[in-house]
């Protein structure tokens, strides 16, 4: 194999596939490598996988000699350090990366050790990339990152009347987004998709269309040049619907930007304290935020807000609260509460397709 490609193009492509390669200790070494395939029609394909997520990128390149090679991920650092056009030539079990008068030769693993990647066969469904990306932005962050709770590391995609619904939870908060008019599933179908994989889908960009191909074990999202495959997770997603209260006695309505800024300001004092909580004191005349971090200090601030209900003090993890505020589209946020122990709900004040359920922190 021998190819020639512009440095910037190659850097971006390698960085993309590198995000998918295994970083976990004890993973199969071949999964930390990058597979490069050069086809005769002037295109090279790069693939990285940890078997949970697979990223595939195709870029234009001069292909002098087609072929396939499995290259150590150090390729990324090497191409980043170079300038101008880069040549990669594979002979026997070595790859030489050359730019101008500089070259590096890397020892290669055998390509046949690389797992078989079955990508994107079958017809897909086309959806609006921007709409889907905005929904992912709202939901993915609520999924768990704890691999020991595999079901919660997934995002539920389920059919609704006239569209789909995306749901994720780490058991402390739950995000629900409806996407009317987006039909990627069959009738009454539901799938649980790796949230890590969907975070990669978010990076595919928000313009044009995405092709979605639902397979047996993976779901593939494609643009013209990039492809992300995310593993489907086995198991039953928790019955989340019963958690959403049907009504709330208390409702706070507040300017989204002001609320966000206030939380950010008071949470500074709790830096590095994972479990420091922000207390919201809600009264008819406004909202006061207080944050106390043991041995460090206290901060507080007040902002205008409309409040209907009985006076209430409720505490939240500030990062979880901020995630919720960030996920709201629209200028005003409503925070609905029952008391200081039951789940509260954040949503756009004017209503909409998104809901963020958040468990309070019980303070001593």
């Amino acid at each position, binding site marked *: 194999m021998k190819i020639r490609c512009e440095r910037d193009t190659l850097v971006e492509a390698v960085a993309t596939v590198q995000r998918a390669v295994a970083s976990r200790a004890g993973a199969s070494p071949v999964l930390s490598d990058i597979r490069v395939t050069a086809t005769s029609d002037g295109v090279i394909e790069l693939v990285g996988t940890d078997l949970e997520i697979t990223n595939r990128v195709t870029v234009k390149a001069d292909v002098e000699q087609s072929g396939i090679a499995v290259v150590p991920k150090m390729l990324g650092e090497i191409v980043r350090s170079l300038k101008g056009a880069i040549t990669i030539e594979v002979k026997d079990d070595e790859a030489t990366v050359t730019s101008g008068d500089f070259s590096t030769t890397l020892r290669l693993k055998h390509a046949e050790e690389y797992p078989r990647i079955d990508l994107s066969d079958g017809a897909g469904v086309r959806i609006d990339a921007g709409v889907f990306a905005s929904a992912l932005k709202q939901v993915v962050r609520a999924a768990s990152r704890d691999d020991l*709770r595999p079901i919660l590391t997934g995002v539920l995609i389920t059919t609704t009347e006239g569209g789909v619904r995306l749901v994720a939870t780490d058991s402390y908060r739950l995000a629900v987004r409806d996407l009317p008019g987006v039909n990627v599933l069959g009738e009454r179908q539901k799938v649980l998709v790796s949230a890590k994989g969907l975070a990669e889908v978010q990076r595919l960009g928000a313009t044009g269309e995405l092709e979605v191909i639902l397979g047996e074990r993976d779901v593939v999202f494609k643009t013209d040049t990039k492809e992300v495959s995310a593993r489907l997770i086995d198991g039953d997603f928790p019955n989340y619907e019963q958690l959403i209260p049907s009504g709330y006695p208390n409702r706070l309505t507040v300017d989204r930007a002001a609320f966000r800024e206030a939380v950010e300001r008071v949470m500074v004092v709790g830096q590095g304290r994972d*479990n420091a909580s922000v207390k919201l004191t809600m009264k008819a005349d406004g909202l006061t935020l207080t944050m106390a971090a043991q041995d460090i200090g206290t901060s507080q601030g007040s902002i205008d807000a409309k409040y209907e209900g009985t006076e209430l003090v409720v505490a939240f993890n500030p990062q979880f609260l901020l995630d919720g505020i960030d996920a709201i589209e629209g200028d005003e946020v409503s925070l609905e509460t029952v008391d200081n122990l039951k789940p509260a709900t954040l949503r756009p004040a004017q209503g909409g397709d998104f809901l963020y359920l958040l468990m309070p922190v019980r303070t001593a």
Partner: protein
Amino acid sequence: MPQTNPSTSGVRTEASILHVDLDAFYASVEQLENPKLRNSPVVVGGIGTRGVVCAASYEARKFGVRSAMPTAQARKLCPQGTFLVPRMGLYGEFSQRVMAILRDTTPLVEQLSVDEAFLDVASVHRLLGDPEEVGAHLRERVLSEIGLSLSVGIATTKFLAKVASDQAKPNGLLVVHAGGELAFLHPLPIRVLWGVGPKNAEKLQRIGVKTVGDVARVGIAPLVAAVGKAVGTHLFDLANNRDPRPIVTDREAKSIGHEETFGEDIRTRPEIERELFRLIDSVGSRIRKAGLSARTVTLKARYSDFQTVTRSHTLDSGTAVSGVIARTVFALLDQVDHERGLRLVGVHCSNFDDGSGAIQGTLAFGDANELQNSIDERRAEVDRVVDDVRRRFGKDAVQPAARIGMNDRQNPTLAD
């Protein structure tokens, strides 16, 4: 408020740091359990061909038996000795009883291992007397209530307190009073300094340094030239009794953990889990006692070739629940090639919350979804009950708590 003691910062004007060390701990427990073994040489260690000595009674030491020596060699030196396999569970129980007596004296206890701890007694003067009286009282209580002999060193720094307890052994108490530190320390051989192994000792001998006093006299530059900057400056500080480390209790610690070294490598999963249960149980109870919760759980394993690996997992939120720590540790065990044989395992919890007592609520998914929340809350309840029973009736009142949440597994039994 964390328990910071004003006297732990800066130089002490009074010898108020105690280093306490149980004498020939494993062997003494065996002698206590079996009166026939009293006053006779007892060696605890691995009995296989590759086993090493974990502990030797003072009677066995007279024959030249030492810790870490191959058991086969110990048998040659002391053929009349009684050779026993370690019963870690038993030693763990005795250890916890001793530590409870220490914590009864002052909360400022830093446990170093099963048989060693530092205590800061500067602030218990009015209540219990001066440090020497406190040390004598502890020795008396451990002997009369448990039956084990404890050696105590008392000094103005941790380092010197440890040196003093070593000198006091067996079954003694030694106070190095403020002002008399260097006179005590300088005649001692350099191997009493931490960081002087056989290799460094040889290098120091070559520049004519044999005693701690020599280290202080020769000055910092020749030391650094001989053993490198880090070790050289460290030795120089110790030789001048400069050791500013305060007593760090669990409440302020960055990490709480326990490790266990085996006389003989263990390799089967049930065996390893049995040891881990015990470590998890005591780590969990220490975290709860300190009122903390930890987000990161680390499993440490040392293979028979001394290669040491650690595997960590960070939870979404902190826990003090033994069952949750166990679930995490056993998942991490999958990433360790235990069939190679392990000579040490350890469980460490870190990444603590601020101890404010705030608890992130969890969504009530319900039992049907095999999600851990409700199970974990029940486990937390079990921990609370167990801790409470143990507080009132002693450690032995509930056994083995290590089974919490592991009903599907074989009932762990004590070694032997």
